[in-house]
């Protein structure tokens, strides 16, 4: 199990990386943490002509808070996200989710942006980006653009990123003070890709849920926001009846696949059970805030 041949370029700048990717005409690949890409290269499932190593580009390894949004650069490793004070303070749901991301050694190398670009339907970071209304900042030899998370995920392992583009940073929402959150995941073993996972954030105003956001993963070709569930819970009292209704809606909204580990029926059951837990957790964590 050895990689096929490729060329290697250590990019000095984002512009340099863009040039190399453009020259590769679609057959180049960006190497950041390599924790998803390298296994596929070793299996020869991916055979790039050139690998563009962005690990030495300065300035990409920072997390910054800017106008109520958090910006994670392309070289922010999972470990940094997990340990970062801004993330813990402003996006506790992401801080918590990091505990489920693979293992210590993988977290040392793997990057937030890389995981999002890999777009595994059962990986946490794509779902969190979607939950937190993420914006992908991309760069290429043709310039820069920003793609909303809702437009970014196109299918299993497929994104709207063009072959000549790289993601330089991802911006996500910081949660308002008092917001509640819930995160539930079930995997066969600790650190494995999830059979299903649900993440929730909401606010509590006058005893009612506001700005409810619910995202799922592992139950379809890509992570998804549960629009019908969010709409139904908006303004609700988050009582048993509301939660039961939300779980039913969520189970109706997902289209899970059957695979080696789980059938669609089981996944549909599971994601509902996890959603119920995550919603209840979010509600109990939320503190009453003025409208």
């Amino acid at each position, binding site marked *: *199990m050895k990689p096929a*041949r490729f060329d290697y370029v250590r990019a000095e700048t984002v512009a340099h990386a863009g040039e190399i990717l453009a020259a590769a005409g679609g057959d180049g690949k960006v190497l950041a943490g390599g924790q998803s890409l390298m296994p596929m290269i070793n299996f020869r499932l991916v055979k790039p002509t050139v690998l563009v190593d962005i690990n030495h580009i300065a300035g990409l390894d920072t997390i910054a808070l800017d106008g109520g949004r958090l910006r994670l650069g392309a070289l922010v490793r999972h470990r940094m996200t997990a340990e970062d004070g801004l993330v813990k303070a402003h996006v506790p749901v992401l801080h918590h989710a990091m505990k489920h991301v693979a293992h210590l050694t993988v977290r040392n190398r793997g990057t937030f942006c890389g995981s999002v670009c890999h777009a595994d339907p059962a990986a946490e970071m794509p779902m969190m980006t979607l939950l937190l209304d993420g914006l992908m900042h991309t760069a290429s030899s043709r310039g820069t653009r920003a793609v909303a998370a809702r437009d970014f995920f196109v299918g299993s392992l497929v994104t709207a990123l063009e072959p000549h583009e790289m993601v330089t940073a991802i911006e996500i929402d910081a949660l308002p003070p008092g917001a509640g959150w819930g995160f539930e995941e079930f995997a066969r*073993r*600790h650190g494995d890709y999830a*059979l299903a996972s649900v993440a929730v954030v909401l606010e509590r105003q006058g005893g009612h849920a506001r700005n409810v956001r619910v995202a799922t993963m592992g139950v379809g070709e890509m992570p998804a926001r549960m629009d019908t569930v969010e709409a139904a819970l908006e303004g609700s009292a988050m009582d048993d009846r509301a939660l039961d209704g939300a779980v039913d809606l969520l189970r109706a909204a997902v289209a899970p696949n059957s695979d*080696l580990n789980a059938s669609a029926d*089981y996944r549909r059951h599971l994601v509902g059970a996890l959603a*119920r837990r995550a919603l209840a957790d979010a509600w109990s964590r939320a503190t009453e805030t003025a409208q």
Partner: protein
Amino acid sequence: MTDAPRTADASVELRPKLVGQRIRRTEDPRLLTGSGRYVDDIALPGMLHVAVRRSDQPHARILSIDVGDAFAIPGVVAIFDARDIAGDIRPAIPTSRMDGYYATPIRPLAQDKVRYTGEPVVAVVAESRYAAEDALDQIAIAYEPLPFAIRQVDAVEPGAPLLHEEAGSNVIIARQFQRGDVDAAIAAAPVTVRRRFRMTRKTPVPMENRSYLADWDKRKRALTLHTSSNIPGIVRDVLADCLDLPGNRLRVVAPDVGGSFGGKGSLNHEEMLVCVLAKKLERPVKFTADRMEDLTAMSQAFDELIDAELAVDAEGRLIGLRADVIGDIGAYSVYPWTGALEPVQVVSFLPGPYRMQHYRGRVRGVLTPKPPTGPYRGVGRPSSTFAMERLIDMAARKLGLDPAEMRRRNLVTAEEFPYRTGSGIIWDKSAFQECLEGACADYPALVKARDAARAEGRWVGIGLASYAELTGIGSRIAVAPGMPINTGTETAAIRIDATGAVTAAFGISSHGQGLETTLAQIVADELGCRFEDVEILHGDSALVPMGTGTYASRSAVLGGGAATKSARVVKTKVLKAAAHLMDVPMEELEAGNGLIRARSSNATMTFKEVARAVYSQMGRIPYDQREDLVAEETYDPYLGTACASTHLAMVEVDRDTFGVTVTHFVVAEDCGRIINPLIVEGQVHGAVAQGIGAALLEEVVHDETGQLLTASLADYLVPVATNMPDIGIVHIEADLPNNLGGFRGMGEGGTIGAPAAIANAISDALSPLGIEIDTLPATPERLFRLVEAAQAGMAQDKPAG
């Protein structure tokens, strides 16, 4: 013919024996510092690397092989298919005397047909593995797909497509064990329980993938094979025939080996292949499997359907058991064990450690287009124990009897030994009842905790599994009948050299068991030398005339016995020489910790001084009485000895996710005299982990088209640290067995008991729903299905309105 049992040591003890102590392992310093030497660590000058193009078809005729531009790739040296080496090696034939058996020939590369996805077809030899894999991409093989039956239930049918036409049937193994009149007993019994159990296919997953390096010495016309095998002696003997080389020109060496669990315990295609290629190319040739290759093509395990019915009387006493087993043995019968190894042991061990008059076990081993099943830690008994222990619990539930009490009433008691089971196995003596009591020390408290959890609506359950196995088997009992090998003896060649150092060489092959430590403990105790002066050699066919290796929980019993016998002979020679040198009668001498001491005078000599006098100082011992301080003795325990255990598991099933957490696990085991408790505990922990994997996680899956779906470690799930509870171990050292040393084999047991105990615990947890686990692993998916069906059934049973 058996060696006299060793009674309590009458000799005066000057110091504590090493046997029984928690001695730190001799192996560790090299393995901890990265100084181990596994096959893939060996690089020889001019060495070439092999990559293998494997079949992507389950059953097909090979029409043509086109190597394309493969030779244009820099570094590619040669490409071979079966036709190119047909005259260079004979196939290995796993013969047996079983009626109706067909021995499938085993070749390095598929000839004419492929019979499973992953079977080697073409070998590329190159200067690097990278280049060899580049060449694989260039090769095109045209196949004519042939019909096949991928499931054992279809493959046993008379009209099923044949995998080996020469066999005339896919069923190449059919056996039956019988005692009494089981049909009548079952018909008359007040209570019967019946189920079809399925233990799915597993793969051993040693952390080191298989690796083979052949080195042809053209000057001596001799071949050395370095192999990650746990049976180097067996490999030497069969390859000597296949390659027409005498044993003195064919040496098979297993250096440090990174685990086997059975997967390195049969002859492999690629082991044959590198020998042929090294000889043809006159350069060293190495093949190192990658993980995908080992998951795809290493010998696999279990895969039985067991239809079984148990009859008990109103008090829960076992009356009779009948079982019909279909073992899916895969595409080939492995060398040397044959495809009978696993399924036949299921029916021979199915009656378990219980008193029961009537039994009939039928088994068929059927060929299917999958990798062959072979040895796997526990062989047969994980499946048989799963089925039997489930039946015991099902019967207990039907009777309203506590599962521990049910076992207490049926386990063979001390007065009944030796006890012959319905299949003919003789349990010499072992602590069956004591193990049950040992595992159940906290049982009442656990039951209370379970009932409290259940009252809260939680799915918590407790499961027991009792079993016995035969270990340290001598020449009277072959592991499978009529095999071309002898597994019942072991030889130790011990010598004290001119420097006073002790070397003890064996036919065993340690691959994690710590035998360099435990055998040195025995040698030092028996010889009276210092532990640190003993060097244990193993894993090399050149060490003793006939060696097989380490498997079947044999090495502590047989190796330890051989060590004891040889050490005693050498010790006599040492004392005889010392008696001359010290001028005291031999009877007055004793040896310990490297010193020979005269009881009367307290005069001493070191082993080194004696050795120097014997070998180097001419005349100090009369020439006609001088003997080299060496011995080579062979030990044969003739029969085998039982090793018993009871496992207790407590689990909780998550009502939302159907994930199972093992919250409590206890093993009570009787392994006879314990040589090194540290090592025994490590063996128990590791085997239980493997059993928990089999119960909850691990499953090799081939789809309907014969393709493997579990070809990576992200898909074939083995336990990690978070899956494991702390394991309580209760050592029961009851009556010692009648073998030299009083040891019982214990390397496999955890794998045998844990799946059954966990299956019983899950069934107990889900007993409010009436669920009985009959298929392992009990995955969240399977539990979800069972609970859904049970709840649907309950809803139906409810009266309308």
